[in-house]
């Protein structure tokens, strides 16, 4: 094993790592926003918003994020008429693909969590004279978030791992930079092993932080 090559590529890898973290943070926030908006539509009393949210969720949950990224990057600009306005920079197309896929999964998690809050809670809130919005904000959502937190956390981890897909359309994240270093002639198993270890360490740290957050937010048990 010769890690000299890794040392030579280190500045390049560090540069890519920063981008990986940026994509993961923006992607997670975007996916959470999509999840909240989608779940709100899913529990709407009107049928059309509900149907739209269901169709969106099922489609983006059941198609590969990599294909979504390819669609956004290469197919969207070929849309007749409006295509020329839809040429997205690679990093935007890539992040958007991750947001759509992981966001659709979040919709499903949040919807299921809201349903898991006992019906009596809503009735109690109603009996206290709270309006629909206040019921959601002060009673239902805080409980639903705690129920859904482990699944939401897993989805953040899954998004972090999926950031590697952005390299496939030329974005220079950690994985993209590693490939770039190899394309410059530094063919090396050591480089891939190092990158793999970095991802595993990050995922482990992220997992530990999320479990701590779950513990902190857990209801005090009598």
């Amino acid at each position, binding site marked *: 094993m010769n890690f000299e090559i890794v040392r030579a590529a280190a500045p390049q890898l560090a540069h890519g790592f920063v981008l990986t973290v940026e994509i993961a943070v923006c992607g997670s926030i975007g996916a959470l926003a999509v999840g909240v908006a989608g779940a709100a539509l899913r529990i709407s009393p009107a049928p059309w918003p509900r149907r739209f949210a269901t169709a969106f969720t*099922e*489609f983006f*949950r*059941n*198609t*590969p*994020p*990599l*294909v*979504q990224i*390819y*669609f956004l990057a*290469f*197919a*969207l*600009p*070929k*849309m007749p008429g409006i*295509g020329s306005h839809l040429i997205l920079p690679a990093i935007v197309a890539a992040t958007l693909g991750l947001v759509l896929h992981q966001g659709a999964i979040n919709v499903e998690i949040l919807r299921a969590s809201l349903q898991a809050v006992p019906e009596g809670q809503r009735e109690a809130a109603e009996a206290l004279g709270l309006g629909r919005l206040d019921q959601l904000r002060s009673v239902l959502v805080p409980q639903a978030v705690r129920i859904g937190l482990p699944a939401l956390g897993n989805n953040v981890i899954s998004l972090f*791992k*999926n*950031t*590697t*897909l952005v*390299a*496939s359309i030329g974005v220079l994240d950690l*994985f993209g930079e590693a*490939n770039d270093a*190899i394309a410059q002639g530094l*063919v*090396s*198993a050591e480089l*891939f*092993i190092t*990158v*793999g270890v970095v*991802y*595993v360490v990050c*995922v*482990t740290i992220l*997992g530990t932080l999320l479990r701590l957050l779950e513990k902190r937010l857990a209801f005090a048990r009598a």
Partner: protein
Amino acid sequence: MHSYLSALPGLGRGLGTTFTIALLAMALAVAIGFAAGIIRAQAPRAIDLPILVVIEFFRGIPLLVLMYLLFFALPGFGIRTSNNGAAIAALALYAGALASEIVRGALVSIPFGQSEAGAALALGRFAILRDVVLPQALRRMLPPFVALFALIVESSSLSALIDVTDLLQAARQNVERDTDIALPVYLTVLVAYFVINYPVSLLSQRLEKRLT
């Protein structure tokens, strides 16, 4: 339009490859899952811990990095892998790690009284597992295993990036020849994945409701 129609046979062949890869990876993942899951549910901590570390590694590493490791890095150690072989192996290891958690989770969810009752009937350790615990645990494993298959189909699209001619790679090749058909080709590919995975996800949800 003509160009799009002439791309369809290639996409069909790609779909066949996607299916073959997904089915082989699923079979291997189930085998890995049962082996590792049963050992983890039964073994003392000294044996359980190293297996857990290996499982956490394969769960934590991004699938794409694992595929590249198997395809580009293994030859450096004198192990040559084909594109398809590396893709199947990476999917099997990743899904196998998830499968082992499914198996272990289902096994430990069966109340301990069941094993004790088996022991009271003078059944051996293996007989208790085979005749008492596993039949009950299998029902609980079924929904997550079906969902795992959908995940494998979806994840198999990454094999296009190590030049396996699966559905996505077939699309990429056709679009490379004629970029004007990018829209219908990628739309077809998205719909094809959806048509496979949506019924599989529905089945998993139905089973979950029926069996629990």
